[in-house]
């Protein structure tokens, strides 16, 4: 990494300091969306007015009403309850997949950056190979073969999305390993494992936090795409993607089935993206204006 360039105001600088909305609006919106969705997921059993999988032949394809706020689907199941339980699936997949990819990316990035030379070369070339993979093709193939289930989805998404984290952490480690506190630890006789995990790791976490937050959004999108193709969460369990798949069959007579689950995806992904971007701005002083 080269030395950071001296900041020079080029564009017109605002005369007034930025308003609260300009500074924290994005963060607040992100927190509200993410917090709201998380609450909905955690409290789903309390909030849901009906059993999400209960089939009710007397109430098939009802339009939204007081009894069923978001209507019912072709099997008479309550859409609101299914969306609430679907939130659990989406967030669970998002967190576990990102946990897997962040852990892999962190370890490989730290090792590559710290040891350098051949180790670095091998790991980063591996990253290049993975980046060249038509990964959605492979994800599809693997999941179709391994019987689609939550575990396979989480594992496959996690195992195919760690490359960005590895690159970030490696770059961060490269700058950190020459810093004085690392040298001091080395002089004090700390071994490489201790230096990497006690001294470098905590200082390299900020960019990982940002990419993990954005990663949750990405994982949720992949999960819903897979479920929409019928290769994700399997019926009768609800996921926003498979609800849209069901909705597609009756698009002409029951359009509400194709609207509400999509809104849930939109707001959740939007929330994590907003949160991630504002964290990036807060944690990277270079971009702060």
């Amino acid at each position: 990494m080269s030395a950071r360039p001296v900041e020079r105001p080029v564009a017109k600088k605002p005369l007034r300091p930025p308003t609260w909305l300009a500074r924290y609006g994005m963060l607040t919106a992100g927190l509200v969306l993410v917090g709201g969705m998380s609450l909905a997921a955690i409290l789903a059993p309390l909030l849901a007015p009906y059993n999400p999988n209960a089939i009710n032949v007397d109430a098939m394809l009802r339009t939204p009403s007081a009894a069923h706020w978001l209507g019912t689907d072709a099997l008479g199941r309550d859409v609101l309850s299914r969306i609430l339980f679907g939130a659990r699936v989406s967030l669970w997949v998002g967190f576990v997949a990102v946990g897997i990819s962040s852990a892999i990316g962190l370890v490989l990035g730290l090792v590559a950056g710290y040891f350098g030379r051949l180790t670095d070369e091998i790991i980063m070339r591996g990253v290049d190979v993975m980046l060249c993979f038509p990964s959605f093709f492979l994800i599809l193939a693997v999941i179709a073969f391994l019987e689609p289930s939550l575990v396979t989805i989480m594992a496959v998404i996690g195992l195919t999305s760690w490359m960005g984290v590895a690159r970030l952490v490696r770059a961060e480690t490269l700058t950190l390993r020459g810093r004085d506190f690392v040298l001091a630890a080395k002089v004090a006789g700390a071994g490489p494992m201790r230096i990497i995990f006690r001294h470098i790791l905590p200082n390299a976490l900020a960019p990982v936090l940002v990419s993990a937050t954005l990663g949750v959004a990405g994982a949720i999108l992949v999960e819903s795409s897979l479920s929409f193709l019928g290769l994700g969460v399997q019926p009768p369990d609800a996921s926003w993607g498979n609800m849209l798949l069901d909705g597609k069959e009756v698009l002409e007579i029951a359009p509400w089935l194709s609207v509400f689950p999509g809104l849930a995806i939109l707001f959740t992904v939007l929330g994590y993206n907003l949160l991630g971007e504002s964290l990036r701005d807060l944690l990277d002083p270079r971009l702060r204006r």
Partner: protein
Amino acid sequence: MTRTLLRIATKLAWVAVVFFGITVISFWVIHLAPGKPTDMQTTLNPGASAVARERLEKLYGLDQPISMQYVQWVGRMARLDFGRSMSGDGRPVWDKIEERLPLTFGMNIVSLILTLVIAIPIGVRAAWRQGGVFDRVSTVIVFVGFAMPSFWLALLLMLLLGIIWPVLPISGLTSLGFAKLSIAGKVWDVCRHLALPVFLYTFGSLAGMSRFMRTSMLEVLRQDYILTARAKGLPARAVIFRHALRNALMPVITILGLSVPGLIGGSVIIESIFALPGLGQLFYQAVMSRDYPLIMGSLVLGAVLTLAGNLLADVGYGLADPRIRNSGRGGGGA
């Protein structure tokens, strides 16, 4: 000169290694998964005996160890033979892929051009007046675009433009009376069928591309030479187009090369929604019926396209950046 050639040779060798790695991983993952393609043909057919099943496995070479199968597969690939599909028709894999290439390629290229044409001006405009009204409005739209699943937007558009206000066809490539139409009528018919899918492809990459362009432009606008250009009193137009834009476009070349895997994945979803006979749909069918040769063929094609994208991006970057072009560093170069 020799140094440049050496660089190119190293690069090509590296591409070959990556390609080899991708085929090994794909082959193992696909063949190690439990179950066999012959399960489909035998369990669905009550008349099929264990003997018939064995004969079928022998025919496809599935009775041999995976490493042997891989060696044979590589041997065929070396002669550009993708093998035969394991589905009922048993046609050569390459024939099946070839007939579907033009549609998927065409849609992706048209939407890529549209994306660039729309996204670059948006990014430049937003960066030039960072924090202005245009920047803020486009940022909001970009965030919504990022969060919008393409298949959901597809459903909404089908609902709006196909059902509520039926102006566009929402399924397939041609209308019922297609054969009777004149040439112009046929072209128009296909265009109408492809309007929504192309719009969705474009929309899908628009948010990312315009955001990327904005970031890249902001980075360039901070440089000293922009300050110089402005200080010597050049009009904004000249600063943007002569000094800033050309440099800001450099990273876009790289991102274009890296976007190939995403486009391939997107085509699976969009083609399956609109029932378009393209590569994505073919791959989806291949996966569902465990057609190993067809899956491997599609993965190889995807890998080749991705690597070609990266290589072109490298060469393009080398050609566009005089520092790389003249020093012979980096990927390609003249």
